[in-house]
């Protein structure tokens, strides 16, 4: 484990650095279950079934995976600012490796590559290899964005074989028992061209996420942003109204994350209307008329 030597001194920048496969979710992340997703994920994990998370942006997919990593790992004690992550007795480690996929992400980015160093070339495991070896939950965010050749890797990992062929070194790695592949996918803004292939899709169970119902969302916003319940409720209603526009010019509705941002700004004393404007309206669209319309909704809900 690589770790920055941190002396908690004042004015000293403080950060923690982990090797990618050693990152454990130590403290319980806040996650408010809406349906039976917790049970489903746990069952899939036990049964080594890969999981596909579907849902619009900012509705809590990543948070969910984080939460599950914590829950499945379940460290015995949780200590804040605990610099070392030593194994405690009876602790199960489920590291979480998250990779945000982008269009230039190639298979070798995931598996690993030869690097040059002072004495010659050296093989470096990519994050996927490390996750497979370490028995982590590997979370590929927005998987359709990645290049097509990544499917070559996903397929053998996701069926009964659970192997990762490393072409360049000529090895095959059998995944650790705790390893699970989890991918996310946002059906809304994917063009047909970038859709997931069925041969890929059908290796996963799919859990659908959507924005939570108003009351639940209000609870989440309140909890996450720390703003008043009343504001949180208004924000979640605003979210609901804006999502009504999804088919009428808005590509995506206001995400729970944005609502939380607005709530946080409000908590810091920014006036509600202004907070919504910068956190929600201007973020969602550049189109004048649409902005104006959403602003009118904001003005109706907030004084």
């Amino acid at each position: 484990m690589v770790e920055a030597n941190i002396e908690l001194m004042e004015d000293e920048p403080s950060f923690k650095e982990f090797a990618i496969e050693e990152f454990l979710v130590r403290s319980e992340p806040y996650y408010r279950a809406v349906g039976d997703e917790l049970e489903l994920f746990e069952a899939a994990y036990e049964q080594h079934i890969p999981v596909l998370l579907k849902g619009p942006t900012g509705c809590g997919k990543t948070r969910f995976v984080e939460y599950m990593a914590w829950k499945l790992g379940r460290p015995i004690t949780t200590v804040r600012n605990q610099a070392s992550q030593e194994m405690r007795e009876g602790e199960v480690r489920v590291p979480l490796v998250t990779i945000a996929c982008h269009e230039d992400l190639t298979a070798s980015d995931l598996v690993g590559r030869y690097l040059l160093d002072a004495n010659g070339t050296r093989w470096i495991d990519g994050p996927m290899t490390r996750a497979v070896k370490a028995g982590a939950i590997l979370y590929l965010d927005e998987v359709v964005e990645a290049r097509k050749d990544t499917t070559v890797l996903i397929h053998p990992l996701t069926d009964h074989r659970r192997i990762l062929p490393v072409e360049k070194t000529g090895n095959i790695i059998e995944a650790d028992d705790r390893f699970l592949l989890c991918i996310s996918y946002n059906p809304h803004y994917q063009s047909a061209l970038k859709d997931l292939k069925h041969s890929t899709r059908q290796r996963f169970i799919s859990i659908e996420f959507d924005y939570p119902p108003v009351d639940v969302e209000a609870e989440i916003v309140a909890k996450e942003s720390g703003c008043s319940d009343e504001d949180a409720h208004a924000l979640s209603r605003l979210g609901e109204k804006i999502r009504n526009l999804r088919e009428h010019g808005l590509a995506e509705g206001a995400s729970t994350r944005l609502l939380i941002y607005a709530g946080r700004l409000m908590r810091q004393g920014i006036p509600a209307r202004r907070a919504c404007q910068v956190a929600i309206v201007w973020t969602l669209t550049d189109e004048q008329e649409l902005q104006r319309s959403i602003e009118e909704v904001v003005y109706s809900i907030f004084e």
Partner: protein
Amino acid sequence: MTNTATGELLAELSKLPPAVTEAYEAVAEAMGDSFSDEELALWAREGVAIGTQTVRSWESAVEYYRVSPEVARSLAFASFMQWARCGTYLSQDSPTLAVAFFKASPTIVTNLRPQYIPRWAGLGRSLYKGTWKSSTLAARFFEVSPDLVRNLPFWDVEVFASLIEALSYKSYDVAAECLVLGRDVLPGMGREREAFLSMSRALTDTSWREVKACLEMAPRALQHVEEGQTGRFLRLGERLAKMGLRDTSRFLYDGAQALSHVSAGSQGHILDLCEGLLATTPDAVPPFLKSLDPVLNRITLPQLDQWYQQGVELLNENPESGIAFFKIESNTSEAMLETLSSSLDLERVKGIMRLYTRALSGANIEVMSTEELVRRQIGWVDQDTASTDGTKVYLPPMIDNYNDKSQNFAWFKVVATHQVSHLEFGSFEFEFDRPANVFDDRRIAMEESIQARMEAIRTAAVENLLVQDMNVSVGPEMGEGPGGTMRVYTDIGRFLALFEDRRMAFDLFSVLEDCRLDYRIKTDYPGIRRPALDVQGDALAQRPRVEELPLQEALIELLVHMSLDRFEGLLVPQEYREEAYMLARIMHRLRTIRASIEDTAEASLRAYEIISRLQNQQQPEDEYQPEDLDDPGEFSEEEYEALLDKLQAQMDEQQGEQGEGDPYESPEPVEYRGDFKPEMVQLLTKLQMDQSQMGDAEPMTQEELEQLLQDSAELELDAQEGDVDQSMAMFAQNIMKEAGVPPPSNDPGRGYGPILHDDDAGGELEALEPKTYVYDEWDFRANDYKPRWCIVKEKILDEGDVNFYNDSLRNYSSLLAHIKRQFELIMPETWRKTYRLIDGEDIDLNSALEAWADLRMNVPPDEKIYWRRNRVERDVAVVFLLDMSASTAEAIDEGRHSVDDRDAPDDPVEYMVWLRRRREGLVRRHYKRIIDLERESCALLINALESIGDTYGIYGFSGYGRENVEFYVIKDIEEQFNDKIKRRIDKVTPLHATRMGSAIRHAITKLENQDAATKIMFLISDGRPQDRGYSREGVEKEYAVHDTHQALVEAKRKEITPFCLTVDKAGHDYLKTMCGDLNYEVLDDIWALPERLPMLYRSLTMVR
């Protein structure tokens, strides 16, 4: 020429200065080529004649000989002699003139038809008045003639010359200056020249000095004016000049400035207004035009009409103040502008309102003007009152309640919010059997008791019938349908049927429901609280005084007041204090978020029971005392029942004692709450539902519907007396149409609603022939597709001459090379490996070795040792749609080249042939049409596309009517490029109309079958979409534009990127609607099309 003759001639020439002989000898030989001997003799003699006219005319003779060979090349001998003789006459008057004449001749004769030459000479002559100055002017005229004749039709030259002559009477200097100015300015004027000249002619009589200023001003000023309107504008100037307007140049300048600020399509309208003024008070025209710009900065064009109208009225009363009005130097004018500029048109905020209402309700709501609702004639009659029919929100077309735009907008918003709240909080979802939340349910018991009572009445009636006459009618006032069973279609209708006075019940229901909604709005939308309070405050100020109303109405008015959030200091009749408090309690109970529409029903039931038991009599004013009803206590069912019993007892007591009191009248409507018609909405929804699940239940017949409408309390409210019966049938029919029920076919007596458009007749079409396709069309008014509405006929374009294609490439060879280079640049980008990257697909051996070597040398190596292929492979399919409508035949910039007689042959025989050919249209045009540029661009594009290997198709479209949308294949998308296609391009010609939507849909189908990563549809047009019947109710433009927009949206949905390119300079206004947030471009300079099109395409398909 014989020697003797030559000898004689030389002898005569020798009498003149030797220069003449020299000139003769210099050309004599050359002339022999053109003329026979005989003719030569005549030619030479004429020179002598010229030379001998006056003392100094030998100079003319020299010039005559000098230019002869050149002139002879263009003129046949007869014409030549005619020309020479003209010179002779001129020489007689003034040798200077003749010299100028001869000097100009060589160029003139190539451009002017021979028969005009004497007239031309005459023009010059007419300027000569025997003075030195006039001869200079005339000579100057000949000097500029070549340019004039080359660039203007001859009659314009004549008019211009007469203008100069007229000016010369005033001042030779000015005339000379204008002559030169005219030479420079007139050719650029195009078809407006005639109007300009005649305006200038008018000026010479009144203020001749203006002519020069106008000439100077014209080119700059006129470029602001729309092409078609320039002539009118100038004629306006002419008429003003004739009426004695002094500074016409100023008018020209101001007017053009003003017009330039008006969007192109509307300039004609402004000129209409000017002409209107001209007819009455010409003096008002210049100030009007001058004020136009500042005025239009403040108000819109439709508002301008109102302002103008006011001004005209003032003019009629008092011209002085009218003119001051147009100068905006009067208070009336200023105030009017103030009001107009603060008013708010629905059109301007419609988009925002639509999205706003959609966001709030979560339903696909349309926002429309109330005018539209009234036009549909389905029971709404009030133009100014907002309403909703469940799927659309209707708002008044214009608001000018406040002197401030933002306040007017806030009003709109409050009104819209109130209407949407009907949907959001379920006003129309009333179900008779669903329990209320905050009240006990009494409806059902009440219905049962009424039915029992009716049963009793009926039994009694039947018994009576048996005993008495057969003619006694059975209580229709109970809402009984035929056959004795009540057929109640809607839940609201069923509820209202419980009451004897349905109107009062419905009034109570409306007031209480509005109260519930306003309360909900205030709790759910705190942000709107303040504007809502303002609006409520204004509404309160307009309420009638409670104490002046009879008792029942007073109590209802009290409820209205409370529903408007006014609880303090209400005037309550002391004798009925208990009742008022009970009503207040009922109302307060509704003010909770738990209350539902069923609670409103229960509340109105209770309120009705109380109020209907009172007599509608005026109470003495001193009876009324102010009370605060903000906390009247909790409502309790027991107290309510006790009160009811008491009232019932009183009523029984009073029976027969007194008169009935005043007839009940509904309260004044609260403006911002609009029209609330739950029954109609439920009816429409239900009809639509019945319609969609046909066969399930027996659909309602028109008779039943009419009966139902007659019973409806809502209609009673609006329709005027006597009107009801007549309009009922129409209403019923319109409603059924609205709901999609086909009107009864065998019912000629009744007459249908207004026939909308002949093209609406007929219905769906079917494609029977091969290569024809049927498409839906979008009707933006119905907000729905008209199914199978258009037939697209696909035809392969005829083949023409291959030369057009080749010529185009040749003519644009330099541009072509440029385009090709640009396009070729796209290719390598997609395939080339990129080296020396920090990260990539694999290690680049070269760089790696270098790095390795560096390492060995203990030098830090370059870490950029990877290569990567470029990320996107080019995979593009594109369809080009060319507008082949008739309007593309329009010539571009005709003024640039005059097309008249310049290439007419001189020989009469040839001329006749030329004329005939010209009539037949076979002569090659010297001007270009829009379509020519489209074709040329097309050729260039094909060439470029072939070089990069994109899949492409090129199609033209036109057509007439919905059953004939022609879709011409120039190159089918799957076709390989070949000579046939080159030939087809030649045959691209202007045809008929433009029904863009269907053409786009067909192009979509073409593209859909393509398997390409990027699909693009490129639409090139010259203007709005239009076609016969591509219109409805005179909103032709709107309909076509919306359909096209919808087609483009469909393309977008199918992953096709549409792009519109138009060469219509006025394109911005409708393209915004047509393309929405899709891409478009308006090409300002049509000549740039061949260059712009490939470039646009390139940037559009560049790696994203």
